[in-house]
């Protein structure tokens, strides 16, 4: 019988996705199109935030949206109804988007005419955190009814985002959500993260989000 020997492998498991993600980022850098990956649990307000963003920015930025759902076109139809190009990717049971799926999305949008493309990732705090989509910025939404303990349960998601939006702050008075405790838990995982409090329903705080987004797109395009 042959002897057992040890071979060094020393490879990142996600190397293929990381490579495709880098290609996506580079391709969009050339067309000066910023790609933003929006992640959250189901029902925390991704589509509502996109609709608020479209309402506030459609006159100043050329926007496009890539919607990802396991099997439905509902979200893309809502966005397209506002006159914004929207592509629906059906992930066919997959719980996240990877960079190859995002490539299909940007192939289908005329990205060279767009300033900002927002990916609405699959509603899930686990899997999307593991896969680089090729986005230039990662944003997540945590809504007040979900609770302030989510950074303890899904630490990876909080650790990879550039901005955290705490949505549904109109529910704060009805809940025991501890905002200072939440902020502290998040900042340990990610000291550079920007945290904004909003309500997509009442419009409270949306101006701060829109200003952040405008500034990021301007920085990305090298206008400032």
């Amino acid at each position, binding site marked *: *019988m*042959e*002897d*057992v*020997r*040890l*071979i*060094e*492998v*020393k*490879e*990142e*498991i*996600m*190397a*293929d*996705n990381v490579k495709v993600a880098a290609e996506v980022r580079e391709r969009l850098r050339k067309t000066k199109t910023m790609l933003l990956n929006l992640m959250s649990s189901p029902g925390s307000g991704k589509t509502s935030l996109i609709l608020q963003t479209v309402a506030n920015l459609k006159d100043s930025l050329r926007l496009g949206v890539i919607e990802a759902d396991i099997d439905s076109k509902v979200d893309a139809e809502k966005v397209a109804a506002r006159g914004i190009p929207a592509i629906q990717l059906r992930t066919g049971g*997959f*719980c*996240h988007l*990877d960079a190859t799926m995002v490539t299909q999305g940007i192939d289908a949008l005329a990205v060279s005419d767009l300033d900002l493309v927002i990916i609405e990732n699959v509603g899930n705090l*686990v*899997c999307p955190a*593991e*896969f680089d989509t090729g986005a230039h910025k990662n944003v997540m939404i945590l809504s007040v009814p979900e609770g302030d303990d989510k*950074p*303890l*349960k*899904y*630490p*990876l998601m909080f*650790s990879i985002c550039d901005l955290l939006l705490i949505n549904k702050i109109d529910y704060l008075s009805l809940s025991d959500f501890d905002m200072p*405790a939440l902020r*502290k*838990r998040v*900042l*340990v*995982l*990610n*000291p550079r993260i920007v945290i904004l409090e909003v309500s997509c329903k009442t419009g409270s705080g949306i101006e701060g989000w829109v200003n952040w987004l405008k500034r990021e797109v301007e920085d990305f395009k090298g206008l400032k």
Partner: protein
Amino acid sequence: MHELPITESILKIVLKHAEMNSVSRVMAIHLQIGKLSDLEDEWIQRYFDYLSKGTMAEGAKLKIERMPIMVQCNVCSTSYEAEAAKLGELICPSCGQKDGTLLSGREYYIKDMEVQ
């Protein structure tokens, strides 16, 4: 759910190295995965057993080493290990400060493999 595409990646890398090294059979694969990852060891092995059927890696055992979540104290720079569920209640073992910064715990790495 995302164990499946990750397992596909593991198998692809393993088979590439098996071919490069003229291996006849892969016995075991040593993975290093950070404790911040939600992967279930049992499911990675089950998917691997399914995907590797008929390849050189069929029957290989995945040996998963969970890499610790390391935090650095924001005050005295001491590095220490933390549990995922206790990241909100950090206390530096050296100076007692409660503020820290995440250093590691997100690894996804194939270290080596035992082959014949």
